[in-house]
């Protein structure tokens, strides 16, 4: 986006009578005019025309954005506030004006290659090696599945093995860099990215599969935008499972299932049908759609540093999404993102089970096997 496009976009957004605000999750979380696409655009427009600089509160407002791009779905002039926010954060970081609450995240990724402050040496502690399969595939596990949602990682490997893959999990996989890219720490993110590209390009495999849409988008879109390319095709697990549908058994599940579209997989990567097809095939149940779904799906609240900086607001957004699932009578909520699952599971009660897609597929398969026995 050049400077003229930037000026046009923020002027257009600042002139709008708030036609997207009703879908902005941070508006819902704070119920204020400030943390909204329109609020951010006005602050940036005032700054751009020299009328008013971004003060500390304005910087905070720029960081009260999930970069979920839901506003873009509703924007006929196609103002891309998520990208504008990301550009602005990069500038704020370069001026050393970012919220200090991000320091720990940045330092942890720099030092440990994950945002959770966990030692890198335990990244693959969940992984049990096993040979015998025929086709090699790299599972880019991502930090959330490695440290916080290990059941997803375990399920993914088991599932991939069950459909004939030899799965490689890399000890020297580092954070993909997404948390740093979204919060403005681009040079630090590129250190992670360059390492990953070098490691991934040294491996002989059919494909790289990611369960985390944040990793997937970063590997597929952000790396090339920064001149980094991975030789091996990168695929999301939903796409791979969709392709292997014939290898999956069909169960006869009777509960109401709904599906939450992760922003990075849906709006940012255009993947909507594959996870739904997998759920339908494996459970025998059509997804009961929530009020807002597919390109109009509400964010879970866990992205772009929001939970790090504003955990209460992030959880309010997650709770609201859980309510959306309950409103359609769902007993099971499936998503296809460890980060979304982590947030949604944390906000759900015992009336709603939350799974990531590989967990759900494996669970259905095991259920079927138990029945057979």
């Amino acid at each position, binding site marked *: 986006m050049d400077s003229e496009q930037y000026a046009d976009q923020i002027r257009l957004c600042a002139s709008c*009578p708030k*036609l997207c605000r009703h879908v902005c999750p941070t508006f819902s979380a704070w119920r204020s005019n400030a943390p909204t696409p329109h609020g951010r655009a006005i602050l940036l427009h005032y700054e751009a025309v020299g009328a008013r600089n971004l*003060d500390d509160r304005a910087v905070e407002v720029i960081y009260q954005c999930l970069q979920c791009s839901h506003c873009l779905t509703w924007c006929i002039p196609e103002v891309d506030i998520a990208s504008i926010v990301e550009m602005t954060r990069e500038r704020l970081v370069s001026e050393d004006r970012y919220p200090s609450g991000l320091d720990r995240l940045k330092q942890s990724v720099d030092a440990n290659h994950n945002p959770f402050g966990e030692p890198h040496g335990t990244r693959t502690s969940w992984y049990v090696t096993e040979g015998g399969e025929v086709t090699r595939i790299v599972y880019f596990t991502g930090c959330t599945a490695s440290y916080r949602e290990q059941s997803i990682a375990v399920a993914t490997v088991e599932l991939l093995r069950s459909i004939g893959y030899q799965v490689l999990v890399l000890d020297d996989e580092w954070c993909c860099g997404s948390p740093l890219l979204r919060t403005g720490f681009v040079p630090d993110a590129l250190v992670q990215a360059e390492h990953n590209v070098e490691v991934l390009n040294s491996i002989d495999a059919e494909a790289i599969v990611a369960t985390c849409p944040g990793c997937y988008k970063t590997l597929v879109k952000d790396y090339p935008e920064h001149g980094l390319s991975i030789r091996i095709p990168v695929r999301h697990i939903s796409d791979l499972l969709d392709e292997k549908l014939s290898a999956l058994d069909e169960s006869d599940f009777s509960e109401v299932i709904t599906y939450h579209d992760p922003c990075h997989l849906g709006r940012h990567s255009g993947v909507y049908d594959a996870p739904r097809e997998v759920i339908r095939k494996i459970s025998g149940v059509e997804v009961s759609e929530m009020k807002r779904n597919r390109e109009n799906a509400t964010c879970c609240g866990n992205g772009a540093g929001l939970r790090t900086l504003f955990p209460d607001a992030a959880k309010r957004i997650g709770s609201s999404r859980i309510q959306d699932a309950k409103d359609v009578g769902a007993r099971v909520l499936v998503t296809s993102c460890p980060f979304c699952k982590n947030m949604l599971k944390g906000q759900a009660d015992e009336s709603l089970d939350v799974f990531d897609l590989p967990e759900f597929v494996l669970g259905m398969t095991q259920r079927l096997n138990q029945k057979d026995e």
Partner: protein
Amino acid sequence: MIGAKRKTIAAERIAGVIGNDFVTIHETDALLTSVDAWPLSLAKIRAGELIPFADIVAYPHNVEEVSQILAICSELEIPVTPVGGGAGSCGGIIPVYGGLHLDLKRMNRIIGIDHDSMVVRVEAGVVGIDLEEHVNRFGYTTGHTPTSLRASNVGGFLATRSGGSMSSLYGKIEDMTLGLQVVIPDGSIIECKAVPRHSVGPDLKQVFIGSEGTLGVITEATLQLFPIPEERRFRSMCFPDITSGLDAIRSIFRAGIRPSVVRLYDETDTAMSIAPHFEVDDESCMLLLAFDGSRERVALDEQQSANICQAHGAQDYGDGPSRRWWEHRYDMYYPSKFLTSGYSIADTIDVVATYDRLERVYWSMKEAMESEGAIVLCHFSHMYLHGGSMYMIFFSSQPDAESLWSTYERIWHAGIEACHKEGGVMSHQHGVGLTRSTYTEDELGSSFHVLKMIKQALDPKGIMNPGKLGMGVQK
């Protein structure tokens, strides 16, 4: 502005009621809370001008908190400007004298639907589209579909006497409201019970509906619901001029038909809004109609309306233009590069008159506004048995900011003066705000005195939204 000492005291006392997290004195929050959808505000923002903002912003969560806050502000004599969605088009929420912005967005509970009575009880801060989507799940519609639906709140609907695009059938918000809860400036909570009709003196809730925050704060309402219609049908008719179009509309209503949508575009608006999508003759005027109800009923109404239109010289365009308008009705409100470049502004003066005056008001306003250099287009919409409203839309572009602000003021002045000269009323649904505040006394004539006495009785210290409805201008 209210001075540093009073500001600190007020902020601390309000925080004592609602908690520190829900009171702010940050300029960034105050500034953004002041931004509504008034075209002049947005043009000034584009030009880099800061618009007026409050000293303090508070976000109460319930009526008791509103009550305590108003009592504090009364005691300290601090101006209070209530704000809902901030979607108004007249500057009604701009706190011209600073003080407190009372932001009701956190009061967003849909308290419940009474299925027997087919009404919904709702807090003032509920966004219109959230309410509509909620009641849709139970098979109802509010019937209230203003273009601002995605941003405006129930409290804002009520404060401005707003109307939706289907008001010909479902009515305006003042028709839809059965019960009302209001907090008056001394902190008293007033309840107007929800009933369809009554005969216990004047209908006091109507004193507050349309009061634009000058008499108190609307905190809750009980609104009518309607079953989602079994069928909605569209029909479009093109007339040789607005006279024949208005005659046809009048005849449709006299025949006992109540279309949900009635929009007659003058030749300029037809050329700009319809001609890019449908082949229409120059100087023709398109009428868009919609009908809601049972299949049998709407089929009959549609056919009878079509017959009436054709008897008035209309050409039948089928459902196309009308359906297209419905499906794209929000599109024209998105800003475009053309309308936001340089020093440009587009605005609407929505006025209302009885049928005997309507066309004269139109021609008089058009001539007066064009004499100030405006490009003017119009559609007649929100039509009723006895008359209806028209949207006088104007556009102006000037070489610099000062020229634009003065031209804008002259166009408004010319338009309102012409409307009054021909016996029209200066707003149908947008309200008064700042654009029409100075004309309120002219508009209401001798009854303005009554409004001032009501204001004096309810708000003797003049703290509520001063400067609006032609009242409470502070020295």
